[in-house]
């Protein structure tokens, strides 16, 4: 089937995998600009501001990177679960739980940075992992559908945490009107890559993780097990893979990544604490990033960067062109649409070459649909 693909020469393959997405983004921008004009603003100003806000100067680059970091890690979490045939909508809650665990260890434990930082990160990972393992266990043990349970655990997490930093909450910073926790001790904060900027080493962790997850999925025996469970549970049982254990494990890893995303946000960004309104929305953005990245760890990095840049650039776009931030959401929606349905783009721009669609993972397997 994909032997036509093998016939494609490298240039054409690059052409497909680079030009098409770029054209998709371009088209999305055109369409959005119509909306901007209708609302009485100037798309050129808006977009130049958007670009400058994302890449204009060192600080803007840094903001882009900071926005990208949690999206990469969260996106990896979602993608990995999808590979294992699980639909983890619970990332939002897992990020929250991770952040809180980070706060607890980061504010209480007394230790030198070399020990404190890893432990605090670990706390985030473990918390997220455990929190995600619960839906995993419920699915393995009772067949409770993870889509429901993860939605539920989202609400449970956010509400309990809201309470914990709320009025008289146990984690509430006592010397503050604000619903926030104490700030992490200096020993628990991520070191900066460039001093006097906000750029912490989170991005390095994220990129390393992307590679790790790639290797995990495609170069390890565990990866084979995960993907087998994802594609054909019966075959997995037939060749002796412990399916239930794997389901819990996959959710745990996925949630661990989410938790880590939360931890890095708390440990990397001043004022190094958790407040109401912190990390809101990363969960669902991670879902978008994962699918835009074709649930491939490397793809996730690029899509996360795209989303991150737009989120960062949004500031200047509002400031300069008075275009509401919601424009970004529209843009992201359109881009996702055109990249996924790239036949539209091929149609518009008359691109003949066929795309490869080898090992197309069916994201919707969690439904009991998907593989036969």
């Amino acid at each position, binding site marked *: *089937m994909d032997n036509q693909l093998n016939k494609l020469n490298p240039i054409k393959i690059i052409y497909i995998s680079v030009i098409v997405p770029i054209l998709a983004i371009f088209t999305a921008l055109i369409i959005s600009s119509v909306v901007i004009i209708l609302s009485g603003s100037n798309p050129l100003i808006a977009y130049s501001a958007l670009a400058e806000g994302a890449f204009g100067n060192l600080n803007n680059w840094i903001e882009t990177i900071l926005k990208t970091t949690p999206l990469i890690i969260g996106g990896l979490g979602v993608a990995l679960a999808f590979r294992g045939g699980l639909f983890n909508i619970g990332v939002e809650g897992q990020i929250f739980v991770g952040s809180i665990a980070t706060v607890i260890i980061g504010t209480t434990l007394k230790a030198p940075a070399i020990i404190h930082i890893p432990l605090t990160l670990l706390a985030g990972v473990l918390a997220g992992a455990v929190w995600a393992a619960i839906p995993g266990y419920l699915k393995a043990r009772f067949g409770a559908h993870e889509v429901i349970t993860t939605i539920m655990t989202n609400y449970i997490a956010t509400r309990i945490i809201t309470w914990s930093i709320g009025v008289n909450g146990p984690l509430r910073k006592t010397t503050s009107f604000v619903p926030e926790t104490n700030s992490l001790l200096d020993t628990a904060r991520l070191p900066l890559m460039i001093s006097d900027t906000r750029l912490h080493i989170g991005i390095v962790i994220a990129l390393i993780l992307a590679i790790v997850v790639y290797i995990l999925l495609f170069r390890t025996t565990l*990866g084979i097990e995960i993907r087998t469970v994802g594609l054909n549970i019966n075959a997995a049982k*037939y060749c002796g893979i412990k399916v239930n254990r794997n389901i819990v494990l996959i959710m745990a890893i996925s949630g661990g990544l989410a938790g880590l995303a939360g931890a890095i946000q708390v440990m990397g960004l001043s004022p190094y604490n958790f407040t109401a309104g912190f990390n809101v929305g990363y969960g669902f953005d991670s879902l978008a990033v994962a699918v835009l990245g074709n649930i491939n760890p490397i793809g996730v990095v690029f899509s996360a960067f795209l989303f991150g840049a737009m989120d960062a650039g949004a500031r200047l776009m509002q400031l300069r062109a008075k275009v509401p931030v919601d424009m970004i959401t529209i843009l992201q929606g359109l881009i996702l649409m055109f990249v996924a349905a790239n036949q539209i783009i091929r149609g518009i721009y008359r691109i003949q070459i066929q795309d490869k669609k080898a090992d197309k993972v069916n994201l919707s397997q969690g439904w009991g649909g998907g593989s036969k």
Partner: protein
Amino acid sequence: MKNNNIEPILKIENITKRFPGVLANDRICLDLYPQEIHCLLGENGAGKSTLMNIIYGLYTQDEGIIYVKGIEVEIKNPIDALRLGIGMVHQHFMLIPVMTVTENLMLGQEKTTGLKLGKLSKLDRSTVSAELQELASKYGLSVNPNAYIEDLSVGEEQRVEILKVLYKGAEILILDEPTAVLTPQETDEFFNILKLLVKQGKSIIFITHKLKEVLEIADRITVLRNGKTVGTTTPKETSMHKLAEMMVGREVLLNIEKGQPKPKEKVFEVSDLSVMDNRKINVVNGVSFFIRAGEIYGIAGVQGNGQKELVEALTGLRKAARGNVKLLGNDVTNEDARSLTLTGIAHVPEDRQKHGLVMGFSIDLNLILQTYFQSPFSNLGFINLDSIHENANQLVKKFDIRTPSIFTPVMSLSGGNQQKVIIARELNRPIQLLIVNQPTRGLDVGSIEFIHQQIIVARDKGVAVLLVSAELDEILSLSDRIGVMFNGKIVTEMNTSEADRAKLGFYMAGFSDEKMFHKE
């Protein structure tokens, strides 16, 4: 009955069909006369299903003309086909498991009662199931109209498929490998039905891989190879060997001669084993048998007498309720699949696509599903792609798996080749016991010959083989000892020398008294 001055009811001229990279049908001609049973033969991938799908309007031909009753017709979709009185029973069943027989029957041509609200009126199940029973009794195809398909045996499903076609008023019946999944008894029944149908005025195109059947039932036979018509003949003019040669294009050994078994020590011993099915009913009760190194123990039996659950219990896919299993003297009862694999059990499962393969994985990965965690394929949890590819290349050569490359997803392999992938994987590691379940279902003579040889080779290497099959020929030609399974028990055991079709069939049908048998 057919003499060439009546015109054919269905005439196909120079049908050509291309798929990306494949010329599936190449200028194929075929004509079907009224009240004729026309057999279509060919290897896996020869183009039979494609041709039939074209006639039935599922695919449209690139070139060629179809005439029905002498009139040129254009068949754009199944509706057209049905309107022209063409009905088809598909190779892979086209029934909806979660629906009842009645619902499956009415689907597409629903009868309704009460207010006429078009597609929103109330389904008239009772009438349809009445009609169904009438039809069923007319052709002796008994089924329970309200049963859910998922609860039926394959044999029953087959009947439903045929009823479906008849119900839709087909005059021309296309049957694509209908007997691939039937037991001898069921097949005999089935042939009676076909004869009845023909008497009733129907005409039938019948696809199969089983030459004996062809000679038994066909009025005329057409053979395809690589999408081309090799020729058309009649049972009188031809023989099994001739047919096989036409199909494959070379000499084929139909019953492989195997050397005398040299059984050694007991390798595998099952005693008093009982197993429950998903509904928690004992479907295997108190089964005991043993297999020695270097012999093939065949379990014959009509499907649904507990073979499935028995095999699952022996391979760690299901827990046994009672009894125990010994491999090389040590107890392996209810060990999980992985540790059984490691103790040297190989398993060729009944359903190749459901259990045996990950359809989305490429061939090379499917070839290491049982061993991916062992060296050389992995060390310290990391996999070693080079050795995986090397392994794949070797096996593809050794087991002659026809594929563009080892990176092709097995999804796009023919069933024959898919089965070879499994056999290759299971036989290519040190094993004590080989458990094979329906190893050649739906495969063409070429593939069957090859797979049978592989099993013999394994035996002669000193492996103990458990062969479960509903194909009596397969059992008889491969096994050294035979046990017949009926109703969850092994009702009798015999050496192959003492066995023949009639005798086995007798026990499979549930009789047990020797004298009765001789009275027969």
